[in-house]
């Protein structure tokens, strides 16, 4: 008996030591959730339709190119409203052979229905692959940007039934607006030849004979005064075909323009440099437009042959220039994104929550501890030891499992204090009953533990069942609640049954013929 008792205490000692090791110091070992640390939680949707449309547009341009080359520019070529295909009406004199060849060469990924003209729709498996690819690239790009921005312990994950959602969690971010812009920036850079510039769209069209040439497009840009204030808007007629795009970039960084204002300078990769130097060499004196996200940032005149570098100017703050350089380095998003959900917790609210949660927990703990001493006298000490041990083990378990402590999680711990003591109450009430029936102390303690056990297990298990459903349902903070409640109740079975029993055993073994029990 003595030996068995010793082993019990060794086990309790080891478990407690381990728990303290894993929870101390708490600010390092206990992982706080976003709601307590402050930070930002975003759920974004990648609009994969964009990528599908881009693919269709690409195919349309190729078909147009092939047919025009042979001298049969199509009579009608337009995208279907669903976005995943296009309709083509060839020029009346187009030979069937030419059309067949274009279809064979260019529309492998399309299902082609021929009627008056032809309708080509992307095959479903191709669409699926494009969508999947867009999300994966989006994820990769966002991860790149966040990494370069430098956030400790970011979580970036794909989610959702269709897999087109991305969850981004960034703890400790103090400027959510900036991060949101960084993530969302499409950052699509193009450098295009300028045909003409005019203050209004009408004037622009007039200069090219009232009709937009097929190979050109109109893009707007801001007009700035010398101090960088926006004073108006002007319109550029640009060639559709880019000289280089963001894909040709090797790197980008913040720099200064000739006036000392923040700007972004970039260098091109070898491929891009070849194209760029050939173009600039041949067009000295012409203007080229630096277009970012379909807006002209600047349109410098080409003064000389440029090989592989350039600069983007125009009304940046230092931070703005740095962020643009960052997203240019990290790459463009393949599709636009929408924020479905945003939860930002400022650091001061998080800190306040921790302080108040701890205070409420402490008040609750003290009330329970005092009541138990008052009501159960000596045995109350026993229950209180079990209760405090429960709290220590619970924190240790949170440390071991690397579970995240959230504000509802703290509420779960506090609630566990109330519910954990239930097991002790059940046992003590039972022991009292047995004593009243005239049993000896030894017998009463044995029976008390034995008979209360089934009630303890059943009652705790039912609570744990509901906690499991909560976990299933859970979004971040609530999961933390389900976790602490479940762990807490499981531990309470150990502390209230095993530890309390061990304390009673020590009492009983000290004096073999104990006739009264302080309970």
């Amino acid at each position, binding site marked *: 008996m003595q030996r068995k008792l010793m082993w019990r205490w060794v086990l309790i000692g080891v478990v407690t030591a381990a728990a303290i090791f894993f929870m101390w110091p708490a600010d390092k070992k206990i992982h706080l959730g976003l709601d307590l640390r*402050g930070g930002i939680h975003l*759920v974004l*949707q990648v609009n994969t339709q964009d990528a599908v449309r881009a693919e269709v547009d690409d195919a349309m341009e190729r078909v147009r190119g092939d047919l025009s080359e042979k001298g049969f520019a199509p009579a009608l070529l337009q995208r279907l409203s669903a976005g995943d295909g296009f309709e083509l009406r060839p020029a009346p004199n187009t030979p069937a052979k030419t059309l067949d060849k274009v279809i064979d060469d260019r529309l492998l990924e399309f299902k082609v229905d021929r009627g008056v003209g032809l309708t080509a729709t992307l095959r479903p498996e191709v669409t699926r692959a494009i969508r999947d690819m867009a999300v994966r690239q989006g994820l990769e790009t966002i991860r790149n940007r966040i990494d370069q921005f430098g956030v400790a312990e970011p979580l970036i994950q794909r989610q959702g039934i269709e897999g087109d959602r991305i969850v981004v969690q960034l703890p400790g971010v103090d*400027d*959510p*607006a*900036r991060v949101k812009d960084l993530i969302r920036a499409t950052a699509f850079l193009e450098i295009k030849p300028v045909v003409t510039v005019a203050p209004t769209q009408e004037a622009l069209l007039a200069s090219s004979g009232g009709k937009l040439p097929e190979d050109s497009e109109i893009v707007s840009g801001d007009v700035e005064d010398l101090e960088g204030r926006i004073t108006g808007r002007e319109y550029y007629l640009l060639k559709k075909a880019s000289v280089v795009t963001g894909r040709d970039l090797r790197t980008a960084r913040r720099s200064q323009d000739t006036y000392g204002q923040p700007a972004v300078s970039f260098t091109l990769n070898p491929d891009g440099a070849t194209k760029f130097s050939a173009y600039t060499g041949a067009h000295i004196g012409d203007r080229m437009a630096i277009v970012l996200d379909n807006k002209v940032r600047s349109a410098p005149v080409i003064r000389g042959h440029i090989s592989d570098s350039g600069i983007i100017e125009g009304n940046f*703050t*230092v*931070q703005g220039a740095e962020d643009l350089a960052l997203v240019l380095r990290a790459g463009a998003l393949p599709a636009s994104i*929408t*924020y*479905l*959900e*945003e*939860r*930002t*917790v*400022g*650091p001061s609210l998080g*800190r306040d929550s921790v302080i108040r*949660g701890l205070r*409420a*927990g402490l*008040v*609750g703990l003290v*009330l*329970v501890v005092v*009541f138990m001493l*008052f009501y159960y006298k000596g045995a109350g000490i026993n229950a209180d030891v079990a209760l405090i041990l429960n709290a220590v083990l619970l924190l240790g378990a949170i440390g071991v499992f690397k579970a995240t402590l959230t*504000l*509802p999680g703290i*509420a779960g711990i*506090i*609630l566990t204090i*109330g*519910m954990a003591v*239930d097991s002790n*109450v*059940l046992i003590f*009430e039972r022991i009292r*009953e047995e004593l009243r029936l005239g049993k000896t102390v030894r017998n009463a303690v044995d029976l008390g533990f034995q008979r209360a056990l*089934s*009630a303890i297990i*059943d*009652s*705790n*298990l*039912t*609570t744990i*069942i*509901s906690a*499991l*459903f*909560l976990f*299933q*349902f859970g*979004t971040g*903070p*609530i999961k933390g609640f389900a976790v602490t409640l479940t762990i807490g109740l499981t531990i309470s079975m150990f502390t209230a049954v095993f530890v309390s029993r061990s304390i009673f055993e020590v009492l009983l073994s000290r004096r073999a013929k104990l006739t009264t029990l302080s309970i």
Partner: protein
Amino acid sequence: MRFFHDTHIQFMKYRWHWIAISTALNLVALGLIFIGPGFKYGVDFAGGTQLTVKFKSEPDLARIRTSLENLKLGAVTIQRFDEPERHELLIRLQNPGQEGDFSARMMTALDREFNAQTASMRLNLQGVDAVRDGLAQADPDSVGGTFDNRRAHYEPMASAILNFRKEKGILNGPADLDGVKELSSNAKRYLADNARFGNFSILAADNVGPAVGKDLRKKASYAVGFSLLGMLVYIWLRFQFQYGVGAIVALFHDTLIALGVLSLTGREIDIPTIAALLTLVGYSVNDTVIIFDRIRERVKLDRGKPLVEVMNSAINQTLSRTVITSGLTELVVIALFLFGGGVINTFAFVLMFGIVVGTYSSVFIASPIALGVSNFLEKRKHAHRRR
């Protein structure tokens, strides 16, 4: 010390009274839910954008409302968050059917309304990087050198200012900068003259799009439904079918009354509220199970005794445990309600009510229902035999 000395209260004798009272309560709850005032969904389920804003002093609510209504994005509701002297408000924009980044637009609108003075440095709204860059740009300490060099010099000052704001929630004005020891006197003077403190700071921003809100509503009702089902099955397996029914009726009773109280008090239903409801489900069943466990034990010992009497003595024998545990849990929850802060206030509120109702239903409702079902099953068995 003992609260109860071998009580022999006739709980079961008046079972029809309890059932009548509870039925009435439940009908009232149903009325509150379906006729009015009904549920008020929080931002989690209704979708929309909600800012938690701390103002320097009590703000003019009408101004907040007008400035946001001018955005033409949706209806604006304003409610107090936490104690009045903290000047903290929950400002919500109901914009169902739209997805996007609305919190930024709300912030800009509030900024324009409440912070007349424009300045590149806005100490209550910006992060460390922006404050650092602002100081590096102005260079009040005349450090000179490259921009990055100046940045390194002002970085510790900027993070000290932000840490101070983190503790206080809001910087009230230039005088607050005296509390930031890391700040050089030149930088302090520069900020006092040039930076804008503004009238509010943003404590939290939530924006839940309609797709997510709908998703959460579905998940929440599944969670509550399946957890009720899980309880029924568990108790059915561990005890008997009639006890499972008794426990589930008690659970529905508790959940319904809790929901009724929520709709009566007009508290918003959010994710933490669902957590509280599920906890209540677990807690209430816990209480019921303890009594059923005693009935199970007594049934074996007192063979031949009518079930009514067995149940009655089981309830009496567990009464002191029921009262002590519920009382202690209630104490703890009250502590949470009083001291836990605004974020989990509704959570604690639901449990505070729920524990009382759950305890009542465990004692007065679960066993009578189990008895009724038991009698019904018994009768049917007899009828079968006679045939």
